[in-house]
């Protein structure tokens, strides 16, 4: 096949959270049209045929919306291209003969489950602490019964595009979760539905974030540069502001 492409993969293999992990090397025959995850499917087929343990990695939608496909590729979360997830990365972004290193997200708050698959339930606990609005059940209200200016709706939507992938944490030298928390807090602080719990929310979410063991932000900007949804750093400024206001009000 003229399109054939041979690469060498250096993949992090780790039996479980407690085990000592290490890099293993594999040769894979792929082609430029494959996605990075399809290339991993090929590798796993190969491993299974050889009677070896396939590489555990997370994926679900394979179209950039679920946020599961966490891989640090050649030192960058989701690989060398900006604004995409691993499932949207294709082998044409690499060259024939390349050696590519693949590791899991690394942060104390994201323990490795196996190989490249990490446990991100610390994010779920942050959301559970306040990343929601409480509403009474009943009939669904008319979509336009609460008027929201287009500009505000757009800004809230921009923050709402966060898919909770955790690339921000994985890229940050402090393993800080501020971009993620900032996105959630900003989204709800902008909308009328988020007002009732606005102050309690930000304090509860930041407390949970700290308790989960994420580091403090030092504004290097690595998170926003690596975020597949290009969530801007300004959401962290908003988070700081919201938190300060709530604290000054004695929350």
């Amino acid at each position, binding site marked *: 096949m003229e399109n054939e492409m041979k690469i060498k993969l*250096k993949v*992090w293999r780790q039996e479980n959270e407690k085990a000592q*992990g290490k*890099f293993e090397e594999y040769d894979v025959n792929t082609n430029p049209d494959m996605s990075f995850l399809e290339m991993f499917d090929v590798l796993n087929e190969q491993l299974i045929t050889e009677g070896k343990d396939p590489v555990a990695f997370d994926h679900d939608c394979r179209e950039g919306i679920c946020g599961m496909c966490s891989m*640090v590729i*050649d*030192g*960058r979360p989701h690989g*060398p291209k900006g604004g995409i997830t691993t499932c949207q990365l294709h082998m044409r972004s690499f060259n024939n003969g390349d050696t590519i*290193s693949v*590791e899991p997200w*690394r*942060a*104390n*708050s994201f323990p*490795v489950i196996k190989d490249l698959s990490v446990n991100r339930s610390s994010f779920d606990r942050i959301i559970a602490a306040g990343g929601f609005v409480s509403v009474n059940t009943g009939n669904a209200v008319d979509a336009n019964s609460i008027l929201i200016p287009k500009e505000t709706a757009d800004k809230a939507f921009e923050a709402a595009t966060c898919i909770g992938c955790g690339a921000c944490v994985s*890229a940050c*030298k*402090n*393993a*800080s979760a*501020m971009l993620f928390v900032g996105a959630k807090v900003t989204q709800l602080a902008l909308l009328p539905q988020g007002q009732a719990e606005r102050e309690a929310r930000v304090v509860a979410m*930041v*407390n949970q*974030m*700290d308790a989960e*063991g*994420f*580091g*403090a*932000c*030092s*504004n*290097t*900007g*690595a998170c926003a*540069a*690596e975020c597949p949804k290009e969530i801007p*750093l*300004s959401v*962290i*400024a*908003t*988070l*700081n*502001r919201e*938190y*300060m206001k709530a*604290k*000054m009000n*004695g929350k």
Partner: protein
Amino acid sequence: MKVLSFLFNSSIGRKFAMALTGIFLITFLLVHCGVNATIFFNDGGETFNEAAEFMGTNWLIRTMEIGLFIGLLWHIFQGLWLWQNNGMRRKQKYGKSAGNANSTWYSRSMGLLGTLLLLFLVLHLKHFWIVSRFTDEITSGQETLYGEMMEVFGADGLISVVVYVLGCISLSYHLLHGFQSAFQSLGINHPAYNPIIKSLGFGFSIIVPLIFAAMPLAMHLGLLQ
């Protein structure tokens, strides 16, 4: 007091404290730089000595000096704590990491740059502050602060000059990240103001350390009388 406890026990509160003390120290640098730049009048240090005498005797300035030290110590201890603490958040390090692809080296090295500055500061305080506040060399009129500078940086002062220039380089990189970072930590990030903060920060981080570095250099090279 309880309202302010978040400054000590939450990640965002600590950042906030770093930013406030940082901006305070930036204003101090401006004053310090302005006063010291009077040596460039090249009047044998006359204006400078007068300014130094005023700064050393005026009660308002002396009171603010206490505030300065509190701010400085707060910034140092908080900074060291954050450096140490943030460093523990990723026990298993990356085999390969491409940090330069997403951030500047100096934004990731604030703890290191700050520590270099701290070491420099110890020497700097020993050179000038201790002499002028805790000995009577200057008050008794045996020596002027300008004369002291000439002595430290003069013909035999090559090592001091090199250390001071290195200190100024660390300061410059520390400020390149710190200046704008302080505003972000305080929640000031808005398309209308960001360009002003960025260019002001950039200018300040280059110009102020440059003026500071020019002082020992000019003295060592014999450009000042």
